[in-house]
């Protein structure tokens, strides 16, 4: 499989002297969906800022779609890698919602009719079309977040990096963001999410990369990582409630844990035992 991103023994030291990454190696295949999880300050955000060249490694190297990030300008890298920051205020700058989504496309020289069509499509998907003439700064936090996602999706980068996409989103908005993930899957995009949202991860990613103190401490599919409480505790995460229930029941021999539990399966196994 072709690699979308290769991170090779990367160390990163901030100008103040804090070593945020201490030898991280990671390979993300094209079309793969991964989640980077770990406590605040574990190096997740520092790592993803290397993907579009905003940060360059102090040592080691990062290769994006075959290009070493030290040898390419941010403009080239950010065409390949669309990054949606955790705090939308760090990203928003246009006078209207419409312009916010149109700007990157115009910047990359998309024809105006394509810009118009895509702005409208992604604003509608994110349920922001009605706000198109408003200042983005008047939107709520959740709306701003969806706006920054729309602005990145519209210019169609091959690799999409989302930092805490579901934070501050209500139940229905999370469902919409789930829908977007499914859409990206059918489009064959490579997606990297930084998140604490274990439920979201279970639904959408192929692999979890757990970070702690500037290092990758484990890589595993969600079915394995999210049912291993001691591993999760090292990254200050907890198993989802359904996994906690399944773990308890399997310890007492009522449920056989194989892969990530499904609600219907847990119910069926309990009922089967009850019928005996």
């Amino acid at each position, binding site marked *: 499989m072709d690699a979308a991103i290769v991170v090779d023994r990367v160390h990163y030291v901030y100008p103040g002297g804090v070593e945020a990454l201490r030898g991280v190696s990671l390979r993300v295949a094209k079309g793969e969906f991964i989640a980077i999880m770990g406590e605040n300050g574990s190096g997740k955000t520092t790592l993803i800022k290397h993907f579009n060249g905003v940060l360059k490694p102090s040592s080691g190297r990062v290769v994006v779609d075959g290009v070493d990030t030290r040898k390419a300008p941010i403009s080239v890298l950010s065409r390949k890698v669309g990054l949606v920051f955790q705090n939308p205020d760090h990203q928003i700058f246009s006078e209207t919602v419409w312009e916010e989504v149109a700007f990157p496309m115009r910047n990359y020289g998309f024809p105006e009719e394509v810009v118009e069509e895509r702005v409208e499509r992604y604003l509608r998907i994110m349920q922001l079309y009605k706000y198109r003439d408003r200042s983005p700064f008047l939107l709520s936090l959740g709306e701003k977040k969806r706006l920054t996602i729309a602005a990145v999706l519209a210019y169609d980068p091959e690799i999409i990096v989302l930092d805490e996409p579901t934070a501050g989103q209500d139940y229905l908005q999370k469902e919409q963001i789930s829908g977007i993930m499914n859409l990206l899957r059918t489009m064959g995009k490579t997606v990297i999410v930084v998140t604490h949202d274990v439920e979201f991860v279970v639904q959408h990613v192929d692999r979890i990369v757990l970070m702690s103190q500037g290092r990758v401490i484990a890589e595993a599919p969600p079915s394995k990582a999210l049912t291993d409480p001691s591993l999760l505790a090292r990254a200050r995460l907890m198993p989802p409630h359904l996994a906690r229930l399944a773990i308890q029941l399997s310890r007492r021999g009522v449920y056989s844990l194989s892969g990530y539990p499904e609600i219907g399966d847990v119910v069926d196994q*309990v009922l089967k035992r009850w019928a005996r």
Partner: protein
Amino acid sequence: MLAELRGVSYRYPSSNAWVLEDVDFHVDSGEYVLLAGPSGCGKSTLARILNGLIPNFYGGTLRGFISIDGKDPRSTPTYRMALSVGFVFQNPENQLFFSDVERELAFGLENLGVDPGEIRRRVEEAIREYGLEGIRHRSPSELSGGQKQKVAIASVMVMEPKLLVLDEPTANLDPLSAVKILGLVKREVLRKNIGVVVIEHRLELALPYVDRMVVMKDGRVVAEGDPYVVVEEAGEVVGVPAIFDVYRRLVRAGLALGNPPRTPEELAAKIMAVLGDG
């Protein structure tokens, strides 16, 4: 009743739309209430009425009966409302101003002209209760998100409010830090018999702690009561937590599991009790 709203409607100035319509809401001392609902449903507006920012700061048109610790925010200045109601924001950086945790805790009390000896007593008590000893002279801006939110809550609790309102206090926290904050608030409910209203989207985190749940949609209260009854009624608005889904499917199939469980471990224990081997 500590705080009660009856038939309350509100619209912001220069807007024709009512963001709250005919809302009934109450919270009593010793009660931990979860306020949930889609973004834009009016939760934060309701919270701002509870602390008097509406109408004292925001203006607008406010109708209906309101009594908060016996006061009506329409005829009570915000600083008097602050004696009864403490407010914690989603982003603690919006309410932490000082370069030293101890100063942060003392500030509100100094502002109210509380006697210096009493200020020292309450600040020391908060430092002890909230485990802030190691960071008392640190700047809140260098603390982790969870620690900042802890300091923000402590700085409100030293004012000894009767009602504590928290608007998405855990939105920026990792799950372990979020659970710690919600648990800390539970402890305050139990120890100090305060009333609490918490706005939170993540039911899985909040349900183990709260006594009652209120769901709003489009400016109205659409469900209210025992959290698990409410989840059953308003599941399509707020989502159904996985363990509750398992619980209700098993109950429908005939398992006598008793009251709905608060945690997965409790549900597992109930299931084992019915299956008859432990």
